[in-house]
């Protein structure tokens, strides 16, 4: 077909590899429909809104050209294979076992839709049920959903849940919670008449006296992160007790679920809702997404939990099977009364997380957590001993810690780049009082040699 719009002829339609219809088939289909041309199928589009020119887009690339183009863009980025990464702050460089993406990337999982036709999709549903079960084991909560968008939005939705459950309209958020999570909470709750009050940190943990002073009968929830943004462990049980005495809920945000390989699960110390980021569980850094929101809570709150839930049941012959259940909470049935508007979630990443947790297993997850803890402790000790560098906070940490630096942290990072090292996150952009401080992260991926090299380079930079 040639195009004579505005007197310009374009080439005869190039057969596209993704569009199988041949010219002959098009003719046949048009005859079956009973129209003379494809244009006739668009006749009901009012003329004033029709495009009268081709779209102005770069020319189409063939596959080899596409690979070259994308490769050039990829190579212009300093990724964590090329540089040694000491950067954390909510996204973590962990080892992903080979089985994870060989399995999760299978076409049967990758190109499947949401399992609304349950009988046909038992694979996806069962994987979801197993994932939910593993999360419950990890967090010590009764029920977990099949995923949210990311840790930050999951925490925000938990805040909205707390308002619905307690009928109170204020949430207290520790400033030791990830700054971006706090920003997202505010964006989500602002139209709903929920007040957000910051509670300060002291010595890198939430100031419990400030919490006590801020609690009132308007408080729906206290939101903490554990380990928190500074990598420190919170006095979680005490905070949960405080919340409950005031009739409020305790929401625990978790940016590093691997910590639960050795830390007490939030369900055991009184968390009411756990909102987490599952990227560390078998998912890649991917420049910030897609990531994996996790939400887990008590059974009594199950009808208010947003997102999809997989439940076990039986078929007409008594076989165990799985279905999406309690769907009346969701938008496609409840519409404006839904707990949330979430529809598409992060199912594939939940699958990857489940495979990761299965591959690591009970012992493996503990071992990885121990490696993180011990390597970070070694690094913290070594860096803190360098003249000019100071570890200012003595709260116990998991795999991240704050370091006060003798030069501006951004300048320090620029110099480290010359040694192919990605240094810690400079904190001044979020915490002006920490303008001379750095958040260093050491995961199981960092060898002793790499840590020693960092220390050596830092000693030389003065």
């Amino acid at each position, binding site marked *: 077909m040639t195009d004579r719009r505005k007197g310009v002829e374009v080439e005869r339609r190039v057969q596209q590899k993704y569009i199988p219809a041949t010219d002959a088939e098009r003719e046949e289909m048009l005859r079956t429909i009973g129209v003379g041309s494809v244009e006739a199928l668009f006749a009901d589009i009012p003329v004033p809104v029709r495009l009268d020119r081709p779209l102005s887009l770069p020319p189409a690339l063939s596959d080899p050209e596409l690979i070259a183009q994308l490769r050039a863009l990829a190579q212009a980025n300093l990724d964590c294979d090329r540089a040694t990464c000491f950067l954390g702050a909510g996204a973590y460089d962990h080892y992903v076992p080979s089985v994870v993406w060989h399995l999760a990337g299978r076409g049967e999982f990758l190109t499947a839709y949401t399992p609304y036709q349950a009988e046909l999709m038992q694979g996806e549903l069962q994987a979801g049920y197993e994932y939910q079960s593993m999360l419950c084991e990890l967090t010590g909560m009764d029920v977990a959903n099949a995923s949210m968008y990311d840790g930050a939005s999951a925490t925000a939705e938990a805040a909205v849940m707390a308002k619905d459950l307690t009928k109170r309209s204020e949430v207290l958020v520790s400033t030791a919670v990830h700054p971006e999570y706090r920003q997202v909470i505010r964006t989500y709750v602002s139209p709903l008449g929920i007040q957000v009050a910051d509670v300060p940190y002291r010595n890198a943990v939430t100031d419990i006296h400030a919490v006590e002073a801020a609690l009132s009968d308007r408080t729906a929830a206290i939101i903490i992160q554990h380990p928190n943004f500074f990598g420190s462990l919170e006095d979680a049980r005490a905070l949960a007790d405080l919340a409950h005495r005031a009739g409020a809920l305790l929401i625990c945000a978790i940016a590093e679920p691997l910590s639960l390989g050795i830390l007490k699960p939030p369900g055991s110390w009184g968390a009411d809702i756990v909102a987490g980021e599952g990227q560390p569980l078998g998912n890649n850094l991917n420049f910030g997404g897609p990531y994996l929101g996790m939400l887990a809570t008590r059974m009594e709150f199950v009808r208010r939990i947003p997102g999809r839930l997989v439940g076990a049941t039986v078929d007409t012959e008594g076989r165990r099977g799985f279905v999406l259940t309690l769907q*009346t909470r969701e938008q496609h049935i*409840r519409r404006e009364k839904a707990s949330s508007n979430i529809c598409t979630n992060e199912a594939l990443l939940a699958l990857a997380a489940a495979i990761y947790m299965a591959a690591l297993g009970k012992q493996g997850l503990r071992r990885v957590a121990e490696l993180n803890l011990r390597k970070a402790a070694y690094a913290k000790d070594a860096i803190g001993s360098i003249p000019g560098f100071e570890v200012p906070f003595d709260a116990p940490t998991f795999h991240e810690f704050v370091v006060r630096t003798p030069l501006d942290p951004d300048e320090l990072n620029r110099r480290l780049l010359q040694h192919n090292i990605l240094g810690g996150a400079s904190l001044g952009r979020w915490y002006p009082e920490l303008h001379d401080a750095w958040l260093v992260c050491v995961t199981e991926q960092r060898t002793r040699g790499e840590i020693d090299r960092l220390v050596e380079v830092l000693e030389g930079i003065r």
Partner: protein
Amino acid sequence: MYPQDLRYSSEHEWARVEGRQVRVGITKFAAEKLTDVVFVDLPKKGVKVKYMQPFGVVESVKAVSDLYAPISGTVVDSNTKLLDAPEVVNTDPYGEGWMILVQPEDPKELDTLMTADQYATMIGESGS
């Protein structure tokens, strides 16, 4: 077809006068439209309900509906049996499937409700 001793609201609730109190539930028509009831959310004793305002929720696999009070008053009892056996709403909507027992504020509100024949006409008109 519809029990003559009950009164009916336009939102498919029924009301039965029992001495000075009024028992409330949903009609068979409503239960059939919902299909299998899986959950009922009812107010506790002491909660006040208002004429034609939502007082709870009934859920099936495919739908959720608000429950509307056919009369204003205070809840004196809630059918907690429905928490474990929501299906009773389908099998015995006028008996064991009752939902709340209300101490009415203004018994005259009952006069605004429909008789069984009027209700049957209403649903006959809207089709089933």
